């Protein structure tokens, strides 16, 4: 399925719920086959409390295992099998919230341009805590951004000079709405931690 087809499905009004109570639900449960199941992923899920029918966005996101893995190439080999994210919920009672949710972005990685020693950032430290050797193409950071121009396919999250200073290149890996890229980013960081027992060197915030 293409990204557009996927998004069209998610934004299909037929997914709208028949009732509209303002409530919390877990919007995602990830199941990694053969891997410890991570904690539930919580997100705000609400709908039109007035029952006026203005709920413009809802979705039952179901990422097929392959879609996530193929779109986001990770060094996971064949060890990681099925990844299923079942996201059920009705979101937003306002057009503004709907626009917010529908805005598109990308989950990206910053990868080593050439082999070498890359800075390791640690939370709360004013200086890099050291360096880590990465081979060309290895992941240095996993992130998500909406600062991406889809018309040209160019990111403006980082100035080129910053990428050069870090010795990395920006690789967009998955296109989607804000909730989708957020979930994808989380899954990929989980996978990375599971494989390497550490955050990528450029991800400083403790998990």
């Amino acid at each position, binding site marked *: 399925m*293409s*990204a*557009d087809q996927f998004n069209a499905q998610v934004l299909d009004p037929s997914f709208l719920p028949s009732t509209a109570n303002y409530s*919390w639900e877990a919007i995602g449960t990830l199941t990694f086959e053969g891997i410890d199941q991570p*904690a539930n*992923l*919580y*997100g*705000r899920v*609400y709908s039109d409390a007035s029952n006026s029918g203005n709920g413009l966005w809802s979705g039952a996101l179901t990422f097929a295992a392959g879609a996530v893995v193929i779109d986001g190439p990770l060094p996971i080999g064949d060890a990681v099998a099925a990844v299923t994210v079942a996201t059920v919920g009705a*979101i*937003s009672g*306002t*057009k*503004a*919230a709907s*626009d*917010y949710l529908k*805005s598109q972005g990308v989950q990206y990685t910053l990868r080593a341009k*050439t082999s*070498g*020693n*890359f*800075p390791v950032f640690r939370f*709360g*430290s*004013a*200086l890099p805590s050291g*360096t880590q050797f990465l081979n060309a*193409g290895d992941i240095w*950071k996993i*992130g*998500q*951004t*909406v*600062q991406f121009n*889809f018309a*040209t*396919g*160019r990111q*403006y*999250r*980082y*100035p080129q*000079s*910053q990428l050069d*200073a870090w*010795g990395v*290149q*920006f690789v*967009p*890996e998955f*296109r989607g709405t*804000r909730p989708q890229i*957020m979930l994808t980013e*989380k899954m990929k960081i989980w996978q990375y931690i599971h494989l390497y027992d550490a955050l990528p060197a*450029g991800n400083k*915030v*403790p*998990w």
Partner: protein
Amino acid sequence: MEIKLNKEISFDLFKKLEFIDKLSRLLRLNFESKSFGESIHSFCIVLNSLDPEMGIGQDFDTGVVIYKKYIKSKKYLELHFKLNHHQIKNAVSETGILEIVKNGLQSALNQINDLSIASFDIEMLYREFSTVVNHYLSSEVKTNPPIFIYEAHNSVEFESVEDMDEIVFWEIIEQSKDERDSYQNQIQILIEKLCFLDEESIIGFEYTLRTILEKSAHYNILAASRIMHGVVSNDHFLYLRCRLILEGKEFYFSVIDNPQIIVDSEISGIEYSGEEVLSIADLAFIKKFGETTDKDLPRSIAGGYLNYDEMELIKGDIWEEEELSSKYPRLWNYYHT
């Protein structure tokens, strides 16, 4: 001249274009003793080739320029142009790929006239580029680039920074908040407001934004982010703090002390990413001075002062995961019951 050849490509081309880094090194070595005019001392080329599925679904012709930036004060030119994804994907050899690159560069160089670069011998540069490419293809020994070694840069001293007075900064934010009908609309309002300021003030806004962002690098906000999202990444943490700024000064500093007030705000819903705040100054600058302005952009200037993507001192008291529900009960109950 210093020359850099970079890539912005989708992952399917990653291996195929890995050799570009070797070529980049060869170009750098060959160009460092050469000059192509007084106006350019540094030239950064970015080859962009993305799977059309990542964009608008259509491939671009090779050579279409998608970004060009000349900074007169630094004598720096940055040129991003497209390589047709289909062509690159179907190219079977380095020779084939580099033919596409050469054609792309030739076409792209013809599209920078509006940058009004006084002294830049484009034809000579292209000839030299082609010579190096041919040399690369004929050479039997293609050494790998040297090992990359990260060098930490020194931050700009605070005294030398012309930042915007925080009172003015917050006044602009408050006004935009009063006028907004949505979060995204507020971003547009902020861009419009900054357009009325002079160059120094727009750059000053960026400096002050970074200073203020640093103040919320606090364990309380990390806890809030953790409770709201379940897990936190670099970008989540940063974007949430951007969003907090849009709610105004009083809320911003209150929430650092007591993140539980988030439940009473608009942020308690779903709109908790304020990433667009990071590009407000740049977009206002471009809107005011035009895309072809030869001035450096605010983010690029301020990046050396405070880099939110690199180092931040975290404030507040550290917590254990198990303490979150008791330390922030209202926030916890709101998101977890």
